Structure formats: structure tokens, C-alpha cells
């Protein structure tokens, strides 16, 4: 239990230290050390607890609960102040309603009798590793990145201490969120992550950043409102409990209403349609923020909570409706990703899409679907944070986030390009983790009657995914002439450290699938469902074989290095000079510009977002209706 409390408190305290230290004094060192400590401790925690099953720890609610209540009020006042200052009426309204409900809850139903406030099980441990290790790496990366960021973005005020403080406090909140067994506490940490996200999106202080920060804020507050209502519902439902682990074992008859309401909160946090726009807007934040909050951890909190309630959703209509929200989001967001040329937006849409897929699994809620969901969470967190960080590094060297500008990156920044390729392959190619999880997803959908539409959506969604990732890869590896020197030298050591670690993780964790499955995930499924599943042994062998092949094939490059005659590309006989220009008539030289397909008339945002939002709203309403019918009438 000490480790848990350490992980919850330590980063926040380190964050406060960073804030209090004098200007430019040891900031980087403190952040790096504390990030390293967090990463190590989370690994230690894993080593200590992995074979113990569910461990529930007693901790008196009392002074902590009051402290939490107090901080909640402070946050509310702060948000109210910000909202009034910026005339954000929606935010003001949501804060007032939410706070009123929280106060009422605290007054009318003090939940001080709960003592089992903290817990650890296999899923928690996995999340803790993701938050600790990946979060830690991103924090380390950020120390190098932010220095460069402020050199390039003169318009942003240099408030780095605040930035790192928020990052560290956020890590605390994430640990709190996953270790808490008390739903009121979970809600508190949930709101803290919302706050951190809001402040970090608005970090640069530009108009654009502010606008997007507020849109993220109101959507997340709306989800928070759903969470509060769920808590209030708990006080009315007989037989329910404020303890997460008790609640989910009570079955849909009791837990469905809170599950759907909290699930709604999860949908907003994970930026599912119709709420996807906030995550896209959040891309204005510095890249480590996008990597940490908006792809690998905070948005995962949304899917995490839905995955937690998955046993409740199993075979309920409300669960199917939520699964469909996820599936539709998966399809639509993947399609829109085709039309995007801004690398961060592609990553954002792909994040939204993959979260959708995880939610589809969780909404189905069978043990097979859970297996898939957990692995999707793991692999997505690793590969996507790697990609974000690579794009951040490339962006600083190329001064552009546009994929078109990454033309020939493989020569300009060979290492970063290689890492992007690893990351992309990790996202959609066969022997890598995401696809193996997709395999499990497919099987899960086929084994349950609710999977009927989902399997169709998955088939189309996967096809679309191949398109936008491949063309990005193609852009990177196409080799322009006269490349000149590499421009990788400016990248700082802390950035390299994070990039190398994440690339290695992307590959190593694929090899570890069978181990992770049998040691962690299957135990979790056994305790939750009494049943378990895994990849067939034969497929594991095949997968590893493929992985080895993919890793050794690039070595053939060495073999072909020598004595191959090189010519220019075929350009219809029009002579090509070194600059890849067509020699046009009358001696006019025309530069060759090659651009990818974006198929905007088919997959453009303007076309698909309204469709997706409408579908999302309808499906969420259906899930509410199903919840009311299932929970109240029956």
C-alpha cells in the first residue's frame, strides 16, 4: 500500500517543488529524476504485486475525503473564475450544476464509512505501468522538447515550471484514478485530469489554444456531470456500493445505471463521437502533452473506466449501444484520417479511432473482448506515444507538422524516420501488437450475437486504416535526390532516450504477448469472468516468426549495397536533372512535386464529422434509453 500512496503523492509533490524552485534552477534535473523514480517505482510495484490477484487496501476515508472535497471546491472556484473571466457561459453553467450536486452529495450522503479505498489488480498494474513508464519517458522527453519549443515559439510565454508541475500533478491524478476503489475518489482524480488537460492545452496562451482548451473543458465537464449523476444514482439504488470492485460484481440489474452514466463520462474523456472535436483541438498543445494526455494516458482513463464496467455491460442493450458508439467512431475517425495531412491530426484521429475500438470491445464485455481491449490499450499506448514524440522531434527540425514535408525523411533524419516506421508498423501491420489485438477483437465480435454489426464495421475500418498509414510510410521512405546532411544533430539526449526506449518497447512487447497474456491478462479474466482466452499457441509461433522475418529483412539491404546501377526515376523520357525536374519545352524547367492522395471529396472532415456526430448522439441516447428501460422498468 505504501507504494500506491507513494505513486499518488510523489509526482504531485515533485511538481510543486518544480513550481517553487527559483527560475531555471535544476528544473530539468528534478523533472527527469522524479520521472525516472516514478517509472522505477511503478515497475517495482508491478514486480511486487503481479501474482497476488486483487489486493484491496483499507485506508480511512476521513481526513483524505475531506481534503478531496476541499480541493474539489477550490477547483470549482478556479474554473468558475476562469469561466467568468473568459465569458464561457457553458463552462460556468456546468461547473455550477456539477458543484451543487457534489456539495449535495457530500452533505446528504457522507460516504465516510467506506474504508476499502485503494486496490490493485492485474488491470490496474498494467495501467500503472503505462502511466509510470510511458508517462515517465514522455516527461523526460519533454524536458528536452520544451527548451526547443520556446526557442521556436516566441509567441508563447515561457512558463515551463508550471508546465512540468502540471505534467507531474497529472501523473499523480492518473495513479489516483487507477488505484482508487472509492468512486468518489475516482471522480475527484477524474476532474483533476480534466483540469490538467485544460491548462496544458491552453499553455501557449494563443487565441487558438484558449478556444480549444475551453472546448475540451466543457466536453469533459459534461462527462464529469454524468459521473456525478452516477454517484447520486448510487445513493438511491439499493444494494449498490460506492466501492468500484463491489459495484461491478453486482450485475447489470443494480450497476447498469451508474455504469452507463460513468460510461458516458468515459466516452467524453476518450473523445468519442460526437465529442471527438476536443481531442483534435487539443493538438495545439506542445507535443509531449498530446503524447501523454491525449493519446497514451488520460484518454485511456476513459476507456479504462468503461473496461472496468465491461462485465456489467455484457449482453445488455446499453452495452451494445456503447459498443456501437465506439465502433462507429472507429470507422468514421479512421476515414477522416485519410483526408488529413497534418501529422498530429492524423495521429489524433487514429487515437480517437483506436479508443473507439477499445470501447467497442468493452461495450461487448465478454471475456474474449476484454482480452482484446486490454492488449489494444497496451499496444496503442506504446506505439502512439512513440509516434507523437517522433512527430514532435521531426517538427522541430523541419518546422512543419505536415506529412507532405516529411518527404524523404529517411535521409534527412534517418533515426527518427526509422522510429516513425516502427511506430506506424506497430499500429497496423501484422506481426505487431495492434494487429494481433485486432485479431482477438475479431474473434470476440464473432463469438457474441452483439458482434453482428461490429464485425462489418471492423472489416471496413481496418481497410481504411491500412490506407492512411501506408501512404504516410510511403512519404517517409521515398528518397529525394540531393539529400545533403542529416539534420538530426539538434535533437537533445533526453528526447533520444525516450524515443529509443519507446521504439524498443514497441518491438519487445510484441515478443512478450504470450507472457503478458498468461501472466497478467488471463489471471485478470479468470478472476473477473471465471473464463479465459488467449492466442492459440500456433499463432503465437507464426507471429514471432513473422516478427523475426520483418526484423531481419532490412539486413538484405547490406547484401544489395554493391554494384547496382542507379538511374533516375522514369519520368516519361523527359530528362531528369538532379533536382528531379522535368525539362520542359523551350527550356523551362518544371519541378516535380509529388503529393499523396487525400480523397477529400470522400473522406473530408466537412463531410464525415456531421454524420459521425449524429450517429454518436443517437447511439448515446439509445444507450440511455436502454439503461432506463433495463434499470428502472425491469
Amino acid at each position, binding site marked *: 500500500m505504501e507504494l500506491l500512496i507513494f505513486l499518488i503523492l510523489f509526482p504531485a509533490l515533485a511538481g510543486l517543488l518544480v513550481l517553487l524552485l527559483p527560475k531555471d534552477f535544476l528544473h530539468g534535473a528534478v523533472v527527469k529524476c522524479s520521472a525516472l523514480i516514478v517509472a522505477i517505482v511503478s515497475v517495482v510495484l508491478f514486480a511486487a504485486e503481479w501474482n497476488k490477484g486483487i489486493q484491496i487496501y483499507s485506508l480511512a476515508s476521513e481526513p483524505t475525503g475531506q481534503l478531496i472535497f476541499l480541493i474539489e471546491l477550490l477547483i470549482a472556484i478556479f474554473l468558475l473564475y476562469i469561466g467568468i473571466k473568459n465569458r464561457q457561459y457553458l463552462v460556468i453553467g456546468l461547473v455550477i450544476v456539477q458543484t451543487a450536486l457534489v456539495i449535495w452529495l457530500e452533505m446528504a450522503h457522507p460516504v465516510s464509512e467506506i474504508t476499502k479505498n485503494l486496490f490493485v489488480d492485474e488491470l490496474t498494474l498494467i495501467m500503472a505501468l503505462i502511466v509510470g513508464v510511458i508517462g515517465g519517458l514522455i516527461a523526460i522527453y519533454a524536458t528536452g522538447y520544451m527548451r526547443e519549443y520556446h526557442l521556436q515559439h516566441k509567441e508563447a510565454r515561457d512558463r515551463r515550471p508550471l508546465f512540468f508541475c502540471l505534467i507531474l500533478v497529472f501523473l499523480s491524478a492518473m495513479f489516483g484514478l487507477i488505484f482508487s476503489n472509492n468512486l468518489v475518489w475516482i471522480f475527484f482524480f477524474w476532474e483533476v485530469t480534466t483540469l490538467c488537460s485544460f491548462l496544458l492545452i491552453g499553455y501557449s496562451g494563443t487565441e487558438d489554444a484558449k478556444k480549444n482548451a475551453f472546448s475540451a473543458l466543457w466536453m469533459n465537464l459534461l462527462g464529469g456531470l454524468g459521473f456525478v449523476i452516477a454517484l447520486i444514482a448510487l445513493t438511491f439504488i439499493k444494494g449498490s456500493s460506492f466501492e468500484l470492485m463491489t459495484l461491478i460484481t453486482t450485475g447489470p440489474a443494480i450497476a447498469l445505471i451508474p455504469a452507463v452514466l460513468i460510461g458516458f463520462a468515459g466516452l467524453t474523456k476518450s473523445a468519442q463521437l460526437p465529442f471527438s472535436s476536443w481531442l483534435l483541438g487539443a493538438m495545439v498543445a506542445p507535443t509531449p502533452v498530446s503524447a501523454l494526455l491525449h493519446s497514451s494516458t488520460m484518454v485511456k482513463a476513459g476507456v479504462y473506466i468503461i473496461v472496468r464496467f465491461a462485465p456489467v455491460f455484457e449482453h445488455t442493450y446499453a452495452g451494445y449501444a456503447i459498443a456501437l458508439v465506439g465502433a462507429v467512431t472507429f470507422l468514421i475517425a479512421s476515414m477522416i484520417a485519410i483526408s488529413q495531412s497534418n501529422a498530429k491530426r492524423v495521429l489524433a484521429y487514429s487515437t480517437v479511432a483506436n479508443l473507439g475500438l477499445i470501447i467497442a470491445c468493452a461495450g461487448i464485455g465478454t471475456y474474449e473482448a476484454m482480452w482484446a481491449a486490454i492488449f489494444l490499450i497496451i499496444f496503442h499506448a506504446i506505439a502512439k506515444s512513440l509516434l507523437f514524440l517522433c512527430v514532435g522531434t521531426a517538427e522541430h527540425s523541419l518546422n512543419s507538422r505536415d506529412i507532405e514535408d516529411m518527404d524523404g525523411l529517411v535521409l534527412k533524419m534517418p533515426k527518427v524516420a526509422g522510429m516513425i516506421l516502427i511506430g506506424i508498423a506497430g499500429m497496423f501491420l501484422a506481426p505487431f501488437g495492434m494487429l494481433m489485438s485486432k485479431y482477438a477483437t475479431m474473434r470476440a465480435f464473432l463469438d457474441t450475437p452483439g458482434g453482428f454489426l461490429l464485425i462489418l464495421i471492423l*472489416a471496413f475500418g481496418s481497410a481504411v486504416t*491500412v490506407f492512411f498509414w501506408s501512404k504516410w510510410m510511403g512519404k517517409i521512405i521515398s*528518397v529525394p535526390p540531393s539529400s545533403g546532411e542529416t539534420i538530426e544533430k539538434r535533437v537533445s539526449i533526453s528526447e533520444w532516450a525516450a524515443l529509443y526506449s519507446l521504439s524498443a518497447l514497441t518491438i519487445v512487447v510484441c515478443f512478450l504477448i504470450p507472457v503478458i497474456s498468461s501472466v497478467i491478462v488471463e489471471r485478470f479474466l479468470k478472476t473477473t469472468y471465471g473464463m479465459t482466452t488467449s492466442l492459440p499457441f500456433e499463432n503465437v509461433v507464426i507471429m514471432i516468426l513473422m516478427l523475426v522475418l520483418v526484423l531481419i529483412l532490412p539486413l538484405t539491404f547490406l547484401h544489395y549495397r554493391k554494384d547496382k546501377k542507379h538511374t*533516375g526515376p522514369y519520368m*516519361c523520357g523527359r530528362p531528369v536533372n538532379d533536382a*528531379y525536374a522535368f525539362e520542359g519545352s523551350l527550356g523551362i524547367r518544371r519541378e516535380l512535386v509529388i503529393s499523396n492522395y487525400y480523397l477529400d471529396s470522400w473522406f473530408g472532415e466537412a463531410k464525415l464529422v456531421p454524420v459521425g456526430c449524429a450517429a454518436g448522439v443517437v447511439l448515446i441516447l439509445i444507450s440511455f434509453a436502454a439503461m432506463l428501460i433495463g434499470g428502472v422498468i425491469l
Partner: protein
Amino acid sequence: MNLNIITGIIFLILAPLIGGLIAGADRIVTARMQGRVGPPLLQPFYDVSKLFEKETMVVTTTQYVYVVAYIVFIAFTGALFFSGGDILLVVFALTLAHVFLIMGAYASRSPYSVIGAERELIMLMAFEPAIILCAAGMYLVSKSFFVRDIISYNGAIILLIPGLFFAFLYVFTMKLRKSPFDISTSHHAHQELIKGLTTDFSGSVLGITEIAHWYETVFLLGFIYLFFAFNPVIGIIALIVIYLLEIYIDNVSARVRWSFALKSAWIITAVLGIVNIGILFFRWW
């Protein structure tokens, strides 16, 4: 491990021979349809042997790596399929192989190759849903993803998933690179795209691509055979009829645009998929 490694190895050895012969027969039949005599049956083998005799020019050396990876994974796909492995993994490996081919085209950076690559990606996007849903349908019927279980399912799979079969047949043309869907590269001299995807391959690189294509043809025919596996005679006849049909369509149709190819493939797959998968789902539950 229940993989039947022997059949996998037999595939690795025989598939290029069979694939080459099919390609030769294809060219003769095509020629006859056009009122010509056509080349000898072994012409594809002459072609490929010649390609290996020639000097190989590359735009960048990495091209070689991608094309080698392409053939390795195509062969892997087929070997996995014929040794009775998991059909979803087979589909994934197929996609991987194609992505490598596409990377080979991107690497050269000629406008023709790149447009070929983009179009090939569109074709991949059009093709994938159908083959995934076929795998799903076979799973629903036989309760297994393993080819060996599907093939030993006693019952006519084709009668249970005719819709998916037609969807697959529709996109099969794309994989054979035949008209009307030969928009990324083609066996014939259509000159508007030069050779699309393979424009900048020469000598042995091109030869490897050809052999990989033979592997792929045999694999795809094997995939179609699964639908008819209940009776080998019917299965073989079906394969011949289907292939002749493909040649016929190739000769009577003009190339379409990518948008039509994608739209029609998706609509057909979606409609037939919903109906067919729906029927399967509700038959069992």
C-alpha cells in the same frame, strides 16, 4: 502445433510452377479471344528467366529490400494458408506483403510509380473488407479460423455464404490486376500509367515481383477453393470456370476509375456482407 508443414513446403515449391503455367495459359486464352495465336505456354517462364539475366537498375537500393520482403511475405502467406494455418493471420500477412510492394514503388519516387502505389493502396482498401468478411463468414460456419478445420467442414460452405463469395469474386479481379480494375499496374501495355506500381522495377527486381504474383494467384485460387472444399471435383471445376470468367471479363471490359472501383467494391461488400453475415448470426443465435 497442428500445422501441416509438408503441404506448406509443397506450396512453396509448386506454386511458382503452377502460377507460371496459369499465367501462360491465361495469355494463350486471351490471345485466342482476340483472334491471335498467342505466345507459347511457357512464355512467362522465359520472361522471368530473361529478367534475371538482365542487369538490374535501381533508383534506390532500398527498392530491392522491399521487393524481397514482398515475395517473402507472399510466399509466407501462401505457405501458411496451405499448411492449414489461421486464415486471419493469412489475410494479415497478405496485407503486409502488399504494403512492402507499395513501399517499393514509393521508394523510387517517379510520378508513375507513386500514383501506381496510391492506386494500389486504394485497391487494397477496396479488397480488404471482402476478404476479412469471408474469413469471418467461414469462422461463423465452421467455428474455426484454421484453414484445416474450414476445409474439413462437411457441408457446402458456398451455399452458406454465397453473398460473401460474390463479394470476394468481385474484388478477386483487383488482385489479379485484370481489367476493369487494373488501375495500379497491368499486364498489358496500357500506357497512361506506364506500368504504375512496377514502373521503376527492372531486371531481377521485376522478376521477383512476377514470381510473387504467381504465388499470389495460386494462393487466391486456394482461397476460392475453400468455398468448394466439400467436393474436390466441383472445387477444381469451379476454379477453372472462375478463372476463365476472369479472363473473359478482362477482355471485354475497359478500365474504370479508382472511385468507381472503390465505391462499387464497398457497396457490394457492405450489402452482401450485412445480409450474409446477418443470416449466419441469426441462424446460430
